[in-house]
């Protein structure tokens, strides 16, 4: 399992290339077109980072973040959630690139293999930008937004947030 996961990028690339070539797809052009799709994403992530990181760095330098973490940690430690990841819960449903920026900051500061870094990674990987998806789908279908769906989706986000912390402790004790 571990070897397969380590080899994953190279393995997938080769398999997809072979499969596509077998179907007479221009696999090289497909890859470069896909890589081009990442350019606007990089732009959005950079601007989000440029807006959020000064705010996060300021919070840290002022001592406010430490004070808040000290205040919140008894509560969140009880449910097993690292208090540093709480801001991610607030921003995740609102903005994909802002949440990614915040997650990158957490992983860079605490290390990608630290409990905080892993929890942030699992949270980002297993949730979506809830409000964006809801507005795009109901808007695209020409239907009014259902309040039931907003409530259910936020409930799913909360379960995802709590179980991300739980699963990190389970898999990486």
């Amino acid at each position, binding site marked *: 399992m*571990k070897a397969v*996961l380590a080899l*994953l990028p190279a393995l*997938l*690339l080769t398999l*997809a290339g072979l*499969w*596509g070539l077998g179907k007479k797809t*221009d*696999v090289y052009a*497909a890859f470069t077109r*896909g*890589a081009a799709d*990442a350019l606007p994403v990089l732009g959005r992530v*950079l601007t989000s980072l*440029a807006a*959020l*990181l*000064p*705010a*996060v*760095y*300021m*919070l840290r*330098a*002022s001592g*406010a973040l430490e004070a808040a973490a000290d205040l919140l940690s008894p509560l969140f430690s009880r449910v097993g959630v690292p208090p540093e990841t709480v801001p991610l819960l607030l*921003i995740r449903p*609102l903005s994909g690139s802002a949440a990614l920026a915040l*997650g990158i900051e957490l*992983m*860079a500061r605490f*290390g*990608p293999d630290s409990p905080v*870094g*892993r929890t942030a990674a*699992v949270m980002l*990987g*297993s*949730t*979506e930008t*809830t409000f964006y998806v809801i507005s*795009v*789908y109901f808007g*695209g*279908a*020409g*239907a009014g937004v259902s309040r*039931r*769906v907003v409530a259910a*989706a936020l409930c*799913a*986000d909360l*379960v*995802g947030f709590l*179980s991300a912390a739980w*699963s*990190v402790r*389970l*898999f990486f004790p």
Partner: protein
Amino acid sequence: MLLSGIWTVMLLLSLACGLGCGNAAAVGAAALEGANAAVELLLTLAGPLLFWSGLQELLARSGIAGALGRRLSPLLVRLFPSCREDEELSAALGANLSANLLGLGNAATPAGIRAASLLQARGSPDRGELCRLVVMNTASLQLIPATVGAVRQSLGAASPFDILPAVWIVSLLSVTAGLLAEGLLRP
């Protein structure tokens, strides 16, 4: 707008706390440090992100996504009974789910919106299937969370994808919670 509020509160809190605790100079320096860090992080992130984005398009164009979509139809019929009588709906839902599983955001959204429009046009009174589709799409169902993997890789994680089993379990738990909540809240 909500994000603007959160952001402004962050700025205000750090200014007030910095002045109150005597860290004002550090707060001023930190603002620019943050902007610098933004560029540094982006540079380490760019390569992995380009790679995964290219690979995902390759998965979509090579026909792997389509093959996966057809295999998923037994599952779809259970969640969306209308599939049984509507070929077009079944195809759109299959494309949406398979693109989600492969992390192809660009392909998942158009297929999902087509499925949502078809469900809306069928006009079931409680909109159960439409709501279920939206809830499923707000809870990410990716098999390979490529962006997060790319970030972990760029930051030097020992094994960037060792979080996959955790991500799968959490995705499954959160989508189940969302679908259950939607069912319970239905009048």
